[in-house]
């Protein structure tokens, strides 16, 4: 493939995502309004009604129906797109398992937002963490360029013959979704050559009748679920391959786990999503003060990049995992995953994992606060304290 051309534009991230769906020539968009996702679907409706995107826009009456209509459309062979947030994702919950169980390559953008009660429209990762186990490929974008790129990558991965699974691109509500950023907008021919519409899912066809979604008796259920799990695990290789191909055509290289000044770091912070950029600023400041602090960001949440993460963390003496969600009475969900991952690793000296939960519901968590976290952890280490988890940035 030849290199893509691009135009550098200033664009709201939500609009950039809808533009990605247009470049990908999606056939069916089925969506229901919910803050902070609305700008994405509004712009898609605009493009359909202005004749810029040849697609059916189904203005459904709920998110449950949004995902259900995507499933029906995908079963009939359409390239489908939807977007949601928070309560909307929670309402979809049931159908998300069905979309992956029936192997439909639907792509959804989730503008991550907190869950009620109390009702809050602002961003954190509570919504997606409650949907961790749905069997979808799950990416986290940190900025507008990544949101656009990962949407393109998501379609190519989801529709790959070796995968055939739905995929989610997570973006932080407001702090990513509503920000106007400079973005390299690629040309459509390159996008379609990189991610042409492929239909390897089972299809509804009167000439070749099949029954889709039958009853799975206990004799078959485990095998069906294992097949899904194998597909999700094997998508890891396809994702890496796609990141590589993407770099060749579009010139931006992504990886499942991104390292930032972490190779020689004693203390490594682990983050996911838009707050990673704040953490990078914090790392830079601490480095200036000769503190050996680094950052590791997870771009891929499912399938979990076990090996890459272990490799990225192998030299760290102390880990600080910052979660924007909480498993109540448990721990930060990313922290618990990393603890389990390290426990099962062959590392001789396993670093302590400090789990911090913060920046809930759009509450600011600044670079200075990251620096304070590091100091706090240094204090804990001196005193020999390792809390299960701690909620930070709380008013006393």
């Amino acid at each position: 493939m030849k290199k893509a051309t691009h135009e550098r534009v200033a664009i709201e991230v939500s609009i950039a995502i809808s533009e990605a769906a247009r470049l990908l020539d999606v056939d069916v968009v089925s969506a229901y309004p919910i803050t902070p996702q609305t700008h994405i679907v509004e712009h898609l409706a605009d493009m359909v009604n202005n004749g810029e995107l040849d697609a059916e826009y189904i203005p459904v009456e709920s998110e449950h129906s949004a995902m259900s209509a995507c499933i029906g459309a995908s079963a009939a062979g359409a390239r489908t797109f939807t977007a949601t947030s928070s309560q909307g994702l929670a309402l979809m919950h049931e159908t998300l398992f069905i979309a992956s169980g029936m192997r439909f390559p639907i792509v959804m953008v989730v503008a991550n937002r907190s869950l009620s009660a109390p009702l809050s429209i602002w961003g954190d990762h509570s919504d997606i963490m409650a949907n961790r186990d749905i069997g979808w490929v799950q990416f986290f974008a940190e900025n507008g360029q990544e949101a656009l790129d990962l949407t393109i990558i998501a379609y190519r991965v989801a529709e790959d013959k070796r995968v055939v699974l739905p995929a989610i691109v997570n973006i932080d509500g407001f702090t990513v979704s509503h920000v106007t950023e400079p973005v390299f907008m690629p040309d459509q021919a390159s996008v379609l050559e990189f991610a042409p519409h492929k239909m390897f899912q089972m299809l509804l066809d009167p000439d070749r009748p099949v029954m889709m979604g039958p009853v799975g008796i206990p004799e078959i259920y485990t095998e069906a679920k294992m097949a899904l799990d194998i597909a999700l695990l094997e998508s890891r290789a396809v994702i890496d391959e796609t990141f590589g191909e993407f770099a060749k055509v579009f010139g931006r290289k992504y990886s499942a786990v991104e390292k930032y000044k972490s190779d020689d770091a004693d203390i490594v912070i682990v983050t996911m999503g838009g707050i990673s950029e704040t953490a990078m600023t914090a790392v830079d400041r601490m480095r200036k003060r000769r503190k050996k602090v680094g950052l590791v960001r997870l771009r891929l949440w499912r399938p979990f990049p076990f090996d890459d993460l272990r490799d990225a963390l192998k030299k760290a003496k102390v880990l600080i995992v910052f979660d924007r969600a909480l498993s109540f009475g448990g721990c930060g969900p990313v922290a618990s995953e990393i603890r389990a991952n390290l426990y099962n690793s062959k590392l001789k000296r396993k670093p302590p994992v400090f789990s911090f939960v913060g920046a809930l519901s759009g509450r600011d968590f600044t670079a200075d606060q990251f620096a304070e976290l590091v100091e706090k952890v240094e204090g804990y280490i001196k005193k020999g304290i390792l809390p299960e988890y701690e909620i930070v940035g709380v008013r006393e």
Partner: protein
Amino acid sequence: MKNVVGLDVFAIKVLPKSENFTSGHRACQGCGPAVALRLISKALGRNTIIVNATGCMEIIASPYPHSTWRIPWIHVAFENTAAVASGVESAIKILKKKNKRFTDKGKITVVAIAGDGGTSDIGLQALSGALERGHNFIYICYDNEAYMNTGIQRSSATPFGASTTTSPAGKKVKGQLTWKKNMPAIAAAHDIPYVATATISFPLDLFEKVKKAARAEGPAYLHILAPCPTGWRCDPSVCVETSRLAVETGIFPLYEVTNGEWTLSHEPAEFKDVREYFKLQGRFRHLTAEQINFIQNRVKDDFKRLKKLCNMLGVK
């Protein structure tokens, strides 16, 4: 609203011989909904896609690796049948337009099928949305008047007085306390091209209504009474007879609403006593004379009201 064109005269002899809902499925003896689906699938023909809600007709037809349908069929969940059908219909439309699929297929009929619970309770929102958006599809509710698949629990379509496992005939409360939800009228209130009621004891009427629904340009809603001997506590051999008595007593009137015009399909010359319908079924066994009188009067009143509607809004 678009026209629902044409009327065909059918006789049992000229019904298609091919079966699209085949034998060997796992329905109970005397299953009314299975009879309904066999007839419906004959009327639809093979250029059809079925979207089936969770329920009896889904599980009896699809235990993997067995299949009963010779028509492409998809089941997703319980409450979202109309939404899934919306997706299928929209996809067919756009893929044809973009020359990606179905280009040589002619009109593919998209049919959503759900029970009374999947329609008038948990699936009502998705159904209302799909009817309002005007998708070109048929929604078929096979009404066996309770959640039979999970073991005879009451739904909003369970008739007044009927005993179910969640509206049992107790010492103080005698069965279902509410009147059956008027689902066809709710569908008609969406101003869609075609709404009809039908039942398995009038097979030609049912067949013709499915054909009309398939010709409608826009959403069509069919409400089909399909007795469940297991849940109604009647002998499997009287399933069809029970369905006929429901019409002849006026309990389940047959009518259609075509482009807003209400028409009775069948008016019994003389209404039978509701007791004749009740006596075949164990679910009404406990009814007191007072309850039966109440039902008899309400049935008469409801029929009168329906007739008034047909006179007022019928074909001039």
